[in-house]
């Protein structure tokens, strides 16, 4: 069995070469900017959050460092799905791993429209429906907060979309299980648990909030223990794969995600600190599997829940 096989992760109809997925919004969409070799071990890459119309994103300060974390308020800056398909997707699509379309929307019709555009374009792969962006007014994570409207929009989206459908949930909800169960019942192929945590930073010199929109989303190693808890809860509540997201930065954190019940995991902020992080994580998981005589990644998934 080749070592490549060892790391394979299955999510819906996809078989990823590794469980390490690059999270939405952190990685350039121009492959020529990727340091060589860095995506060799990557299982899939999520696009930045794409919307129907182009968005300029938020003004003012957009990123702010916290202890072991990063607050961001990018605000979904993107050229719009159509321009992305026209100008950016072409160079991206042969990068060696699946590209996952992260779709963000304000009104529900926008999502249906986005799916139509993808269908017309001939894309039959995976979409990651982003109901969890904390950095825009209306839409964004408010979708994850209202279970009834979440159900409505996901049902309709499911009917429209033939490819795999992931739902990226918000951690800023009373119970992560509720959203996960709704997503499953609507036919989602996986839930991504989760997005950034709502936080605040104050610029004490200027005596005011750092960000124009006041709250921003916290990511990075600081939040790993919190994401792990959500993954554990979500994985106990649904049978579809859970994709862990939030704070993975080394093999130990990645293994913890898998053992808590995630079938794969995303890596975002950690790439800011180290381009080699995905390679190091994959090597670490492989070594762990070898040392523990584990031949299939699936054996690890959720193992801590069974203990």
């Amino acid at each position, binding site marked *: 069995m080749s070592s490549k096989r060892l790391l394979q992760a299955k999510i819906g109809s996809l078989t990823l070469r590794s469980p390490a997925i690059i999270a939405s*919004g*952190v*990685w*350039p969409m*121009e*492959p*020529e*900017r*990727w*340091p*060589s070799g860095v995506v060799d071990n990557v299982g899939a890459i999520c696009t*930045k959050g794409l919307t129907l119309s182009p968005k*300029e*994103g938020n*003004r003012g*300060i*957009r*990123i*702010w*460092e*916290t*202890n*072991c*974390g*990063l607050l*961001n308020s*990018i605000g979904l*800056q993107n050229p719009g799905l159509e321009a992305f398909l026209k100008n950016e997707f072409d160079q991206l699509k042969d990068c060696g791993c699946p590209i996952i379309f992260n779709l963000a929307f304000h009104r529900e019709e926008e999502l249906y429209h986005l799916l139509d555009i993808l269908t017309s374009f001939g894309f039959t792969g995976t979409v990651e429906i982003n109901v969890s962006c904390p950095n825009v007014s209306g839409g964004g994570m408010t979708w994850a907060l209202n279970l009834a409207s979440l159900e409505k929009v996901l049902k309709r989206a499911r009917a429209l979309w033939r490819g795999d459908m992931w739902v990226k949930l918000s951690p800023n909800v009373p119970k992560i299980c509720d959203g996960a169960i709704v997503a499953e019942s609507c036919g989602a192929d996986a839930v991504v648990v989760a997005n950034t945590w709502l936080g605040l930073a104050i610029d004490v010199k200027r005596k005011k909030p750092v960000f124009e929109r006041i709250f921003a989303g916290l990511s*990075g*190693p*600081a939040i790993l223990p919190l994401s792990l808890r959500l993954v554990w809860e979500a994985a106990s509540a649904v049978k579809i794969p859970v994709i862990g997201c939030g704070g993975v*930065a080394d093999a130990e954190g990645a293994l913890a995600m898998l053992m808590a019940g995630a079938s794969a995991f995303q890596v975002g*902020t950690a*790439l*800011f*600190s*180290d*381009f*080699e992080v995905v390679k190091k994580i994959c090597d670490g998981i492989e070594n762990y599997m070898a040392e523990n005589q584990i031949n299939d990644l699936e054996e690890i998934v959720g193992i801590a829940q069974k203990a």
Partner: protein
Amino acid sequence: MTMNGTRDLGAIVLEKFQFSDELFMIRVLPEEDSSIPLPGQFYLLKSWEGFDPLLSRPFAPIAVHENGSLDFLVKVVGRGTKIINSSIEGAKVKLRGPCGKPFPAPSGQRLLLLGGSVGIAPMLFAYKRYKDIVPAKLVIGVPGGEWENFCKSELMSDTNLEVFSDDGSIGRSGTPLTFLTEEGVGTDDEVWACGPIGMLKALGGSLIHKVREDQVYVSLEARMACGIGGCLGCVIPTTLGNRRVCADGPVFRMSEVSWDEL
């Protein structure tokens, strides 16, 4: 696939020289082969393990040596630069770079290089690199006495140099812009500048109708996370919409930048 050769590199501190409590030069030697930076490009640097601070800090080299070692001039302003300042010789650091687009190759006209405060770094690098190719003049502005040792150091020797300081304690009194007013600037001069945002904004006014618009370039600063154009954390408003300082810059045509919105 890689256009610019940006990489993460281990490096070792060869030398650290303290000009004052808050200003030092650090020379680091990458442990692996790496691309040679051009003036305007920069590196993200950190001297700590772990994720606190989370982000590496951007610095523009002032020099590259034959053995590949890089010199940075660093001003201590906050947490990250304070920790870097505590590095000692032999310590390990991490570099990400070279990042960003460099200044364009000089056209052959006189190169007028204006550096304010740590904005001097890329200007000095440009000066040393291009002085034998085109006529070049380096004009720097420093805040005051804290910078005296730096101005008198070997780094600045052998340089067609003008120094201005806010309080006149070093060189002439004023800023690099004072030079423009007092000595004028030729229509065909190429002007490159790096420094505090106030200086760069004022520069626009000083140069208007004096030099060809497309020959004025500035190198800008922004908070950065990824350094390669991924996170969109470092954007600035330009006439073409938001542009990433780390990837589309840090060098921009003066005329492209939407100064009023900065």
